[in-house]
């Protein structure tokens, strides 16, 4: 079969959408954020295939078999992976444990958490004795979307746990409580994400008392809109046939960025899905149920005056 995509495709920078399952030369577990998912990357090498356990509803805590497998640990279920930490972790998101074992040499393991957007918001962490008895209380780490914040808070929990329970014994079996530790760290570069459309839709609503702003008409190009800051928000401005138009710079479809979008045939073109919005009417030419929010704009002495406090409703 052949590829027939007419324009040559370019390779995209993948730093923020890819993360390896395993890494070399480091014994820590690195968490990278990929959109709504976190990828927990383990050290490579057969000697590093972790022993993972989870606590089932009936209280049993069996090992996850060491073979190539893919296994979902449901949200709320406690699990422990022994090269990650000796604390037990549960999350408000599902975790997917993928292990790859081959030829006695290749060993890759990864834990993937998340799914629905922003579902990594809480992880609960607690110590347990080998007999299963809880050691102290569980700590809820309200970590939002940032793996680095999660790692920082987990390190604090480790220190607190050792401070409170160091030197004590298990109430159930009398075994000395093991010192808590964590080998988790965050990938400093991998969780920078582009703003998502929903954030942009929220951010681009100017206040009703926003004062008019002035933009030099000579600064505008014929074939592109311009993004203009307006107090804590921003508006898009474009010229068509010498007439100025101002609009909310977020596509009503999914929030795509319209602030510096292409202007073609009297319409602004969303760079995400190519919906085109007629600047005179605001109506989407491909799907009229989507309508661009427009603001009052006029040309005065070479200046475009935008009044973002006034929506055009026709």
């Amino acid at each position, binding site marked *: 079969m052949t590829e027939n995509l007419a324009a040559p*495709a370019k390779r995209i920078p993948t730093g923020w*959408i890819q993360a*390896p399952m395993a890494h070399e030369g480091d014994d820590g577990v690195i968490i990278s954020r990929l959109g709504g998912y976190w990828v927990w990357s383990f050290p490579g090498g057969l000697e590093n295939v972790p022993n993972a356990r989870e606590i089932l509803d009936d209280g049993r805590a069996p090992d*996850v078999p060491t073979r190539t497998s893919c*296994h979902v640990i449901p949200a709320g279920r406690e699990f422990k992976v022994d090269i990650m930490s000796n604390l037990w972790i549960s999350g408000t998101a599902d975790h997917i444990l993928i292990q790859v074992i081959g030829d006695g040499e290749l060993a890759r393991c*990864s834990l993937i958490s998340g799914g629905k957007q922003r579902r990594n918001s809480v992880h609960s962490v607690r110590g347990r004795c080998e007999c299963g008895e809880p050691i102290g209380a569980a700590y809820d780490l309200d970590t939002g979307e940032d793996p680095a914040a999660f790692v920082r808070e987990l390190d604090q929990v480790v220190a607190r746990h050792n401070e409170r329970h160091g030197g004590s014994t298990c109430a159930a079996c009398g075994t000395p409580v093991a010192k808590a530790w964590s080998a988790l760290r965050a990938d400093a570069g991998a969780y920078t994400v582009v703003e998502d459309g929903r954030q942009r839709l929220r951010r681009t609503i100017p206040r009703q008392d926003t004062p008019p702003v002035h933009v030099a008409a000579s600064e505008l190009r014929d074939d592109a809109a311009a993004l203009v800051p307006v107090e804590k928000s921003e508006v898009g401005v474009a010229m068509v046939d010498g007439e100025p138009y101002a609009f909310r710079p977020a596509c009503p479809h999914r*929030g795509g960025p319209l602030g510096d979008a292409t202007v073609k*045939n009297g319409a602004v073109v969303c760079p995400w899905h190519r919906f085109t919005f007629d600047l005179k009417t605001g109506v989407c030419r491909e799907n009229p149920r989507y309508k661009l929010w427009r603001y009052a704009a006029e040309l005065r002495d070479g200046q475009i005056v935008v009044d973002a406090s006034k929506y055009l409703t026709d």
Partner: protein
Amino acid sequence: MIPQFNTNEKLERIIDDWDFFEDKVIRRFSTFREHGDNVYGVRSRSISPEGVIVDPKKGRVNNFYQLGPSGPEEVLRRPLTPFVVPSGNPHHIPHDFGYWHVNDMDELYVHIPNSGEGQNGYSLVCMGNPGSGERDGFAWYCENCWSLLFMRDYTTGDDGFTSTFWKVERAAVEEYNSDPRNQYCGDCGHVNQLGYTWNPAKDAPEAAAARKVW
């Protein structure tokens, strides 16, 4: 735990403890299936260490494109390297599905290479289970100037994935293919290829021909 599952039990009762790479389990996820936070698809595929993915019915399906502001961008798919298609990004896999899929949820892909001679690898796709108002879209863009030609979407979060999604997908493809005006780009005059669905078993002859091309 994992090796002891019994397929006579109801899926929902035991799915939590299934290994998605077990042969019997993969069949259950041969299309897509909702479970917990995610919708999963798991396939057994020939995947070379270099990332060449071969579908027994569709051929080589390892090229992966996202549509960026200036046209298509190829994502280099590497085995053992999970990658995400961020929500809202149109994406297309030539010969696999003949449209640009737009998902309100992130999609995460993991490819595990063949473990040895005659042993297939695994391809795991997982996407967030959509909530109310969240949608999937099926879109066609001009392959010359990348203007939007035609789009249909489906509120997956409200109407459910398992039973209806593929009917909507088929209806969108058939509607796009049914009128030559849909393939004609009003902006540049280019005439574009027909679409085809994800499932090749029901390809009409013209859709099967389009599948071979793009």
